């Protein structure tokens, strides 16, 4: 049985869901960032799948840009985590409760 687009899509859906679960359930700021990378990758997989399916090279171009963007985002995100670490001496996001009523 050849792997068709559905298989890849189910895989991406699961990976994406795992990434979302990671964002919601983990407490470390950096592990949350890593879960976000997971989600981005799942999206990348979807793009590539559909590029292959419809013979459009644009899908791969988009992934190109997404990867670049992910790199920029990771850099800035980590810089923010460092700045917050200086404030609270921990990367625990539960320590940042300034918006509480």
């Amino acid at each position, binding site marked *: 049985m050849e792997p068709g687009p559905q298989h890849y899509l189910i895989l991406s859906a699961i990976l994406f869901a795992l990434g979302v*679960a990671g964002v919601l359930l983990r407490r470390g700021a950096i592990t949350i960032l890593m879960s976000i990378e997971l989600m981005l990758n799942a999206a990348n997989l979807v793009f590539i799948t559909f590029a*292959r*399916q419809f*013979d459009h090279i644009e899908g791969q171009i988009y992934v190109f840009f997404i*990867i670049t963007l992910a790199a920029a985002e990771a*850099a800035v995100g*980590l810089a923010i985590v*460092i*700045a917050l670490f200086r404030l609270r001496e921990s990367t625990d996001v539960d320590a940042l409760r300034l918006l509480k009523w």
Partner: protein
Amino acid sequence: METAAFVVLALMALVSAVVVVTHRHAIVAALALAFNLISIAGLFFVLNAQFIGFLQVIVYAGAIMVLILFVLMLLNVQAEASLRTVGVFQRLFAPLAVLALALLVAGGGFVAAEGDRFPPVDSDFGSVERLGVELFTRFWYPFEAISLLLVVAMIGAVLLAKRRL
């Protein structure tokens, strides 16, 4: 042949993703993520996206994961508290919402897929030349814009991480 590659790579990706999301030690999670990224790169290769696959390994698994590991070690991140300390609200609704999301996304994807087989493509689909041509002709504007964005991100990262402005 393709099937076997797909199954193996898919399993690797899934297992490493689970480890990323659940393991208490952040370093282990980071390494698992690297593994996951490489698996995904393999899947890219299977799908005739060679250039992107290389890019994934070099930039994602190479640069980004290293950066993350750097910061983890710089900040000396300890093991996280167990998942049981998360609030009731979160533990109740998060899995449900995630499940719903997965189903909806998959369902949407199925609808959009139009068929369960891949049609054949040219051999140079996904090659460096092909992508290069597209990037420098049709997509030159986003290309220039994203280089600007990278400059801005660099400046931002430097400023944010400075001890004193």
